[in-house]
């Protein structure tokens, strides 16, 4: 979809970008990361011809962009920047409608599109469409910024540290929104950041840059598992083992676990515990609701009379959550294992801290 071939950009004598080549596939979210001043923004701006390459060329959909009128090119590429740059004298709706208006879309079509986009980025159209940028919080403004970039349904989206100026809570909200939007729209996105956690969370492919050159590129897991040199190792941080766990799903480490139902006879349950020290307990829907300890004095009756069931959500993780989240929960709850559930909240198995340590 996007091919950058031997791109070099000099400012006077200073080489901001040195002989970069990069392929971004259709529907892929590529995150470009690196210390400040390494040439990320410059590379991005070459793609919509806000900067002219000194050498090399860029192809979008196989077409050399230097043959496309820059104004036409830019109308087909969404552009989101850190300071948002909303037009202060226009409402949120008018801001979003900018490119469709430049493209002379039909008025009704623009109206529908704006409403759809406001919903998409999580802003209630009725409440937000008539608001001016000065009346929006930083997070809301950037949501409008993203909607504006998506307005004419461009195939390519360029985002230059779009969440860099937001507080951590708002930032992670917008990151989650972007993940959701991307899973729906499957745009080809080049996303610039200097935040490694953001890169790992969002990226299909990470490109790590330094001094105008690409140091390493690949999937986030590759980057964490096989850093090519000390610079990459340092950049991803000393906690890269933990970061990798944030990319791994709980289901990878999930193993089958014995369980009994609430209405099982207690003596059968004791047999099932066998030489273990506990057994999970599920309700009639196979939803985990507690556990049973092995050591009981001459128990009689049913499982439900003996099982521990208080605040059981602290002992449950979904198979789609990250192992890092599971670990976090174990530490918080002071246990060595959690019960794993599937999408319908039915018991799937368990995950234990020993397995995580041994297998990763």
């Amino acid at each position, binding site marked *: 979809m996007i091919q950058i071939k031997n791109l070099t950009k000099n400012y006077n004598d200073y080489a901001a970008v040195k002989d970069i080549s990069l392929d971004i596939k259709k529907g892929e979210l590529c995150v470009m990361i690196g210390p400040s001043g390494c040439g990320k923004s410059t590379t991005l701006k070459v793609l919509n011809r806000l900067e002219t390459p000194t050498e090399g060329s860029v192809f979008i959909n196989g077409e050399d962009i230097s043959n496309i009128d820059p104004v036409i090119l830019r109308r087909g590429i969404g552009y989101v920047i850190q300071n948002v740059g909303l037009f202060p004298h226009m409402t949120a709706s008018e801001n979003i409608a900018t490119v469709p208006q430049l493209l002379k879309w039909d008025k009704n079509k623009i109206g529908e599109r704006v409403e759809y986009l406001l919903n998409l980025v999580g802003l209630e159209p009725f409440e937000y469409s008539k608001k*001016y940028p000065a009346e929006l919080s930083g997070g809301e403004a950037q949501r409008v910024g993203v909607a504006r970039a998506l307005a004419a349904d461009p195939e390519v989206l360029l985002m230059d540290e779009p969440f860099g100026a937001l507080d951590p809570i708002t930032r992670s909200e917008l990151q989650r929104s972007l993940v959701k939007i991307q899973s729906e729209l499957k745009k080809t996105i080049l996303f610039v950041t200097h935040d490694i956690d953001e890169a790992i969370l969002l990226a299909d492919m990470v490109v790590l840059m330094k001094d105008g050159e690409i140091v390493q590129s690949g999937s986030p897991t590759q980057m964490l598992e096989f850093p090519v040199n000390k610079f990459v190792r340092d950049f991803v941080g000393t906690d890269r083992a933990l970061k990798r766990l944030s990319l791994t799903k709980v289901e990878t480490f999930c193993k089958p676990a014995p369980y009994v139902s609430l209405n099982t006879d207690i003596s059968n349950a004791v047999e099932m515990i066998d030489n273990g020290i506990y057994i999970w307990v599920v309700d009639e829907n196979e939803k985990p609701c507690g556990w049973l300890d092995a050591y009981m004095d001459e128990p009689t009756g049913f499982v439900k009379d003996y099982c521990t069931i208080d605040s059981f959500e602290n002992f449950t993780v979904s198979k789609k959550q990250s192992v890092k989240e599971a670990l976090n929960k174990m530490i918080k709850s002071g246990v060595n294992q959690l019960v794993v559930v599937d999408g319908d909240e039915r018991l799937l198995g368990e995950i234990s801290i020993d397995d995580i340590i041994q297998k990763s």
Partner: protein
Amino acid sequence: MIVGLFMAPLLSLKPNRLMPGDPGYLIDIAPLNDILLVLSLLVLFLIFANLLSWNKHLKLFMCLILSAIFYKIITISGDVALVRSEADFLARTAFTTGFWLFVAGYIVVMMQAFATVIEKKYDIKLLIILLTIAPVGLLFFNGGVGEISIFKELMSKQDRFLLEFKNHLLISGSASFSAILIGIPLGIYSFRHQRLSERIFGLLNIVQTIPSIALFGFLIAPFAWLASKSDFLDSVGFSGIGFAPAITALILYGLLPIVRNTYAGISSIDPSVVESAKGMGMTSGQILIKIQLPVSMPLLMNGIRVSFVQCIGNTAVAALVGAGGFGLFIFQGLGQSAVDMVLLCAIPTILLAVFADTIMQFIIKLTSPKGMDYDTD
């Protein structure tokens, strides 16, 4: 104001136009009824003025009382003048210290009332302005003051007065209009060519520091020379004195505020706004028309306001090079020591400037884009 009314002579009773006259105090010249009326209105005003909270209705009422006093005083003076001129047709009755003191106080109080009105209550503001000028307006209709010197001056020169009024407006208007036409593009140009902008502003600043009389003078020689060299220029009435040098000087003066504010308005826009506009595929023309000019509109219009008001004042000086306008009377009056004649034109010039200023402020509010807090200064 009260001092003006009672302690100082209200009118000057002159035997003829140019001779000094005897002082005429309000107490001496007015009939008892009128004195009592004015007094009671004043007392009423003072009582209200000392009430603690002024709401808008009370404020309007106070303005009304003052306005009535003002009207009464002018009519009293008109009557006195009428009686005196019937007795001796050479006699002149002119306003003097007391009257002007009163007017000064009157304007101060009215301005105070105007200034304390809440920002957006345009209707109240307008009412106060109307009340302020109503007494003068009323008199023009019932004409009871024709025998007071300043109005006699007006009557005897009514046609010239109107003509110079038109001239004044024409000169100021066309100079300001040209200054806008040149100033805005020049402001945009200086923004786009930062290096040249320093020189442009340097030049305009120098022009601004030349006293206006000197600038008008400077232009006479080159314009006369130009006219003598070109038959065409000569034939369209272009010469060293008159309209052409006056307009040119006024335009030169009017440029700085407009260029400066256009430049400042466009520069004050967050660069990321322009970057995103460009990144979305707006041409530089579209960025200018749809983004830069609308966003800088409040500052830009404020520049036009300053330029225009300043131009109205400078036009009075332009009479020196024979351009016409109120300045003509002012300088004539000064030459003849005819104070009434000077005032007759100085006051309308000031009023015109104040009026233009108010109108422009109103236009600024109207043209300021919504969604932006329009701090203009």
